[in-house]
């Protein structure tokens, strides 16, 4: 899937008016009548197609989801590297079941860590996160750790999860869920079964905020591998999810 934002020379956060302007610029640049060459025809086609998607808020948000999934180091890779599908399907089965009880969550507003704390190294942050008595220092440290986006930093946060109080744990999970690097997803999955119900809720929400395309991919994998008893359940969930999705989009 090509990056239409790059093609139109805009960023992912740009408002519709700016995208429209960029689209017009791109049409005038790639139109075969203006560029006077057939070479730009493919680009022109892609510009037209890109704008069809980005002009429509619903299609755009779906595309944004799909796009985020294929960025380097994203979830799709994490799933591919997981060897034990049996384990994966068991986790997914649980996640899917718990998810249905909760409404879909909005994209979180990420906490921007304090500038001073951002300068600290991994060991400093780890210390602050694990041992500080101040709630906000711990939270800031966690956010800074998330910013490092290395697997050891993520691991550090997750390994501390079971001991955190509910409020802090929720914030931390929210942040980790937002990273979408392979290690974070992996760790969320692996710690899922050992966590309490509250934590499970947050994690399962996160999986579903990844978007329908991702869900389909993972569930599809479980179904393809055909590992009983999970395959049958996954099929049911998949059907249910499709139904839910239809209902949701229909209502809008």
């Amino acid at each position: 899937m090509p990056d239409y934002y790059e093609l139109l020379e805009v960023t992912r956060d740009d408002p519709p008016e700016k995208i429209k302007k960029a689209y017009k610029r791109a049409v005038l640049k790639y139109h075969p009548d203006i560029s006077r060459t057939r070479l730009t025809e493919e680009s022109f086609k892609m510009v037209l197609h890109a704008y069809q998607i980005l002009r429509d808020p619903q299609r755009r948000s779906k595309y944004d989801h799909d796009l985020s999934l294929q960025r380097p180091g994203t979830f799709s890779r994490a799933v591919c590297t997981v060897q034990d599908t049996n384990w994966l399907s068991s986790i997914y089965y649980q996640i899917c079941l718990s998810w249905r009880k909760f409404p879909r969550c909005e994209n979180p507003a990420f906490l921007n860590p304090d500038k001073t704390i951002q300068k600290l190294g991994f060991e400093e942050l780890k210390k602050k996160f694990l041992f500080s008595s101040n709630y906000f220092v711990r939270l800031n440290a966690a956010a800074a750790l998330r910013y490092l986006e290395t697997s050891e930093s993520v691991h550090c946060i997750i390994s501390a999860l079971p001991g955190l109080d509910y409020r802090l744990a929720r914030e931390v999970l929210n942040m980790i869920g937002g990273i979408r690097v392979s290690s974070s997803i992996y760790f969320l999955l692996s710690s899922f079964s050992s966590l309490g119900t509250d934590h499970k809720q947050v994690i399962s929400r996160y999986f579903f905020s990844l978007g329908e395309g991702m869900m389909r991919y993972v569930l599809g994998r479980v179904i393809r591998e055909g590992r009983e008893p999970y395959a049958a359940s996954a099929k049911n969930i998949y059907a249910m999810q499709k139904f839910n999705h239809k209902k949701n989009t229909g209502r809008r």
Partner: protein
Amino acid sequence: MKRIIGIDFGTSNCSVSAIEGKRPVLISNDKGSVYTPSVVYIAENGSYYTGEDAKSQAILYPGRVISNIKRQLGKLSDVRIAGIQYSVQEIAARILIQLKNDAEKFLGSKVPEVVITVPANFSDTERKAIMQSGEIAGFNVRRIINEPTAAAMAADLETGVDEKILVYDFGGGTIDISILEISDGLFEVRATAGRSDIGGVDFDSMIAEKIIADFKNASGIDIKGDPVALQKVRDEAERVKIALSDSTEVSSKIPFLSADARGPQHLSWNITRGEFERMIQSKIDETFVLAKKCIADSGIKTDDIDAVLPVGGTVKIPVIQKRLKDFFTCKILQPPDPAELVALGAGMQAGIIEGSIRGKALVDVTPLSLGIEIDGGYLIRLIERNTPVPVSKSRMFTTISDNQRIVEIHVLQGEHPHADQNISLGRFYLEDIPPEKKGMPRIEVIFEIDIDGILHVSALNLDTGKRQTIRIAETLGLSEAEIKRMMRRAMQSKKI
């Protein structure tokens, strides 16, 4: 620099334009008129007349005169005159040849290239047909553009930013509605809708039928079996229709229309504008149904439309102007001559391709959805209508039995869920598939609608990476050899 001309190939009249300086101007024919009737007369020996000359022959030899050929384009119907079979494309080409000659005389240079306009709702088959007509006439057809879009370009609107225009193009044989967004020289079509079975010529025949019926009542003679009298009535009907735009009552006299034992019978008939308006009301209603559909498709609210541009000869009828004013709250533009706009727009596009007009570009849409037939005779759509062109869509195909060598793909255009209710564009056969177990071969078929609105199909075998051969059957088009043969025939048969 190669000159490119723009041709508005209409159902009843054609006109030609070319760039002079920076603007398109209309080219007049050898009769001094910018309209050339789309009529062809073919004599016994195969020589032919076109335009005004052919039209004047109609009264003498109604059987040898072909008019309204545009409505036949893309249909599998040949024309048989004096024992010789002509394809529809070839007849249309005869008119194009005259336009070409007129343009060459006017410009004093060869014009090998052309932009031709078509109704926006023309299907792939119809577009291919006009393209082939162009080839037979010796043209290199550089572009096919849609009539309402062309008109919008030529209207030379003083547009602000993101102005939304609805083009109401009511011609001799077709009605097209297009909604465009215009800004900074970019003409972007948002939606289009049209029908090829409502047009000014239908109003002519309604009047003609009324005359025939009234004449029968008055004199007791049915002239339906008399081709010469019929032709006289048809010509009179067109004259009456045009006259009714200026006067509220028109009387019509045709001396010696028919004869019986009592002697010659003359037609003396009159019609008021009110009667005429009642006659055509249902047809006009249908055009507004189309307008509503187009507005709904575009996703733009009726109140957000900034202006309406009436185009085509038929919009000169006063009641249509009135209905437009009643239907839309925005301003109704008044182009100097709505019938000229399409040809001027074609000339404008020619200028853009030539390079003499800069900073303008057009993005049009495909008027009909493109789909393929699946099991059970259903249609699945691959490219939705009102998608900007050019566009391409690929789809994976495989085999359903072991060692299957051929896969058939039936491509259609239209909106109906049942395949047989749509326009068939042809059957494509993927051939020479390497024998394998069923479901194993993976063949990617790419359906492309190009900037002219014409479909191209190509296929790739993903396992071997080789291009897959495609055989096309059941298309209405002509082969290259047929086109060559028709070109030769057109050259040999003298123009009288």
